[in-house]
């Protein structure tokens, strides 16, 4: 009896402390991992580490610290590094290096981020697929492809599927191009955060909670600005938000096509944005995230989206079934059960100290010159009391941002 009880307790305890025990690698996989780890340790400028065809099981993060290294597979559907049984990580691959290229391979089922590049310069990520193969789950790793604090970053022809936070997440970086990628079944498909000078184009974001996000978070040394989002398809991003509460993207309503939050100088043009049930485009301040508090947020942090320029996008459908009780109620009250929000949803927070004759200074306005597209001012500061649809107030223009040029692309 006692023994049985103890066995049950042990089983329960094991369950609580992280689920099933990790499976040991096969002898072949263990040998492969050891050789690959040695290649990562011995890599020097000019080294090319080749990943052969096959699904290779690894149980430990691959860390690279040497500059000038290329990691190359034979295709993102052929050369696969699987971290399903990872015991030590949490990333799949962790890179602290510059002049780094990774291409033609896949990273699957890492416990944490798929590929994280921290503090690098001249980074190329090409035809890399990061995927959590069990579909969207809160227990999936947070970020798929995650360059952070990096400079001159190119992410192209890559994919992220199933990240429990953001699929392609560029944080605190400078000079970034994200193009021709595919983001699906993540909470946020593509997220540009606290980054200066980013071009996001020709990507497809579909089936995420939110398609393409441009955010500024507080307390970080670098506030972001100057992002161009153009020629993308952000379609049917209606996946229920499966991020853990408190995560940066947990506040994104399901059905968001493109979201700008607290970030200045964002230019959104020539995109196909369609079928996103909350709104095709959301422009919001940090106050709408529920994370604002005076003690924990740097008073120097600017929580407002300023200088947002929206034009030439092809909006279609969407706004017909917003996520969350407040937005649902608002939609039904204003547009009826069968109606829909306009294409652009703005939370209505403005920096009242900056207003000139009731409007932000010309250089800081939100300008929507996009054919018939209307803006709903949700009147967030007054708890959605006096929302109104408007178009005329947003007829303005802003200087266009320069294209990002990378020295290595």
């Amino acid at each position, binding site marked *: 009896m006692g023994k049985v009880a103890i066995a049950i307790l042990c089983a329960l305890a*094991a369950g609580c402390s992280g689920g099933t025990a990790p499976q040991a690698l096969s002898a072949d996989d263990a040998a492969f991992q050891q050789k690959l780890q040695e290649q*990562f340790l011995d890599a020097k400028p000019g080294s090319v580490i080749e990943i052969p065809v096959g699904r290779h099981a690894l149980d430990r993060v691959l860390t690279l610290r040497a500059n000038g290294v290329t990691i190359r597979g034979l295709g993102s559907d052929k050369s696969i590094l699987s971290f399903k049984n990872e015991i030590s*990580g*949490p990333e799949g691959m962790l890179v*602290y290096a510059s002049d780094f290229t990774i291409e033609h391979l896949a990273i699957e089922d890492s416990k944490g981020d798929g590929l994280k590049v*921290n503090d690098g310069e001249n980074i190329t990520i090409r035809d890399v697929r990061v995927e959590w193969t069990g579909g969207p789950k809160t227990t999936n790793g947070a970020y798929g492809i995650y360059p952070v604090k990096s400079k001159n970053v190119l992410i192209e022809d890559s994919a992220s599927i199933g990240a429990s936070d953001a699929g392609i997440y560029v944080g605190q970086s400078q000079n970034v191009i994200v193009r021709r990628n595919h983001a699906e079944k993540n909470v946020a498909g593509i997220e540009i955060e606290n980054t200066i000078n980013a071009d996001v184009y020709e990507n497809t974001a579909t089936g995420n909670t939110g398609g393409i996000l441009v955010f500024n978070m*507080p*307390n970080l040394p670098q506030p972001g600005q100057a992002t161009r989002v153009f020629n993308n398809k952000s379609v049917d991003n209606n996946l229920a938000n499966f991020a853990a509460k408190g995560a*940066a993207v947990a506040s994104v309503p399901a059905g968001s096509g493109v979201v700008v939050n607290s970030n200045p100088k964002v230019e959104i043009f020539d995109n196909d944005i369609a079928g996103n049930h909350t709104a095709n485009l959301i422009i919001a301040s940090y106050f709408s995230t529920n994370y604002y508090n005076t003690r*924990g947020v740097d008073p120097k942090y600017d929580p407002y989206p300023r200088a947002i320029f929206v034009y030439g996008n092809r909006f279609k459908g969407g706004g017909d079934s917003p996520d969350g009780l407040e937005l649902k109620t608002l939609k039904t009250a204003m547009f009826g059960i069968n109606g829909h929000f306009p294409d652009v949803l703005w939370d209505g927070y403005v920096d009242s100290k900056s207003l000139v004759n009731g409007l932000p200074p010309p250089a800081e306005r939100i300008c929507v010159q996009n054919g018939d597209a209307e803006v709903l001012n949700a009147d967030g500061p007054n708890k959605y009391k006096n929302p109104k649809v408007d178009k005329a107030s947003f007829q303005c223009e802003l200087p266009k941002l320069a294209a990002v040029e990378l020295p290595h692309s």
Partner: protein
Amino acid sequence: MQRSVGSSQVARACGLVCACALALVACFRTAQPVHFFAEGRPAKLSDWQIVYRDGGTLALNEGVVPYDLNTPLFSDYAHKLRTIWMPRGTSAKYDADGSFDFPVGTIISKTFYYPLAKGAAARDSNAVARTYDQSTDFSDKAQGERGLKLANVRLIETRILVRRAGGWEALPYVWNPAQTEAVLARTGDAKPLELVSDEGSKEPFTYVVPNENQCAGCHVADLKTKQIAPIGTKARHLNREYAYSSGNENQLLHWMKLGYLTGAADPASAPKNADWRDVAQPLDARARAYLDVNCGHCHNAKGPANTTALDLTIFAAPDRYLGVCKPPVAAGRGTGDHFFDIVPGTPQDSILPYRMRSNEPGVMMPEQGRTTTHVEGVALIEQWIFALRGTCDTAT
């Protein structure tokens, strides 16, 4: 078929004999002087001659000085024998805040071991003791400083940090089952073990020996220089007494006397972290000492976790950068559904203890160096957060 089985048995028997022969050699070897390798990666720990088998003891070579930290890093309840050695006539320069400036040739070793579990059948079982009691770890009498009593402990790994002309390098060595030698394991290792508490409860876990790059994961505290550096050899960690064979003495004073350290401040005025287990010391000082040594090597203004704006070093002001009411930046699912790193008075709503409690890669903090939960460490941090005042008002 039968023949091949037979030949493999012969090979195994031969292997055993050879291993025994080597073990005997190891057992009865007299110590050579410590060997500083200016380059390369010696295949065996014994090549360095820092610690060596002397009968039933893991002995410390001449000039090899053991040390302890006021509050150590948690490593799955492993006990640690830390040593330092410097070439004759050289010494480290004191620094009040950072690691001392050590001369080329300095060799630091850290041997991770466990006392054997009470009543465990033999050392070949995976059972090791989960205890803070170190009273049976050391050899009884010593020429030089006391080593480890091998009858009472199981050696897991010894990490070498060596200061070469180009900077520090980290080399992990893993002890063999016979406990006669530790061999270089650049790509790390994983060992199934079972922690047995003083009360008899058992917790199986995988002890993970880091690979060389993972060593750098903690020992590169400045992402710009990318230089590996020791963590423990700072004034605030070392400023305490040690039971040397010559008697108890403050470690900073002892190092000064030996000529291993110059310019040290008087211990009474030198920085000193609290002992996290000493309940006679202020709760805040104990918690901050714990966070400093367990988290501060990444969570500092220049470290790999500076992407998070969370500073857990002893120097951080007790505000949002220490996590008070701070929304997480890139915690992902590590939030555990909580909104702020630390909510004063409410540890159960705080991300910090949630991540410390977790054993799941992707959630757990620190990210490496443990696979079990430091129950007593989590309790300390929870107690500390519980005592913090104020609220995180979310009003705009």
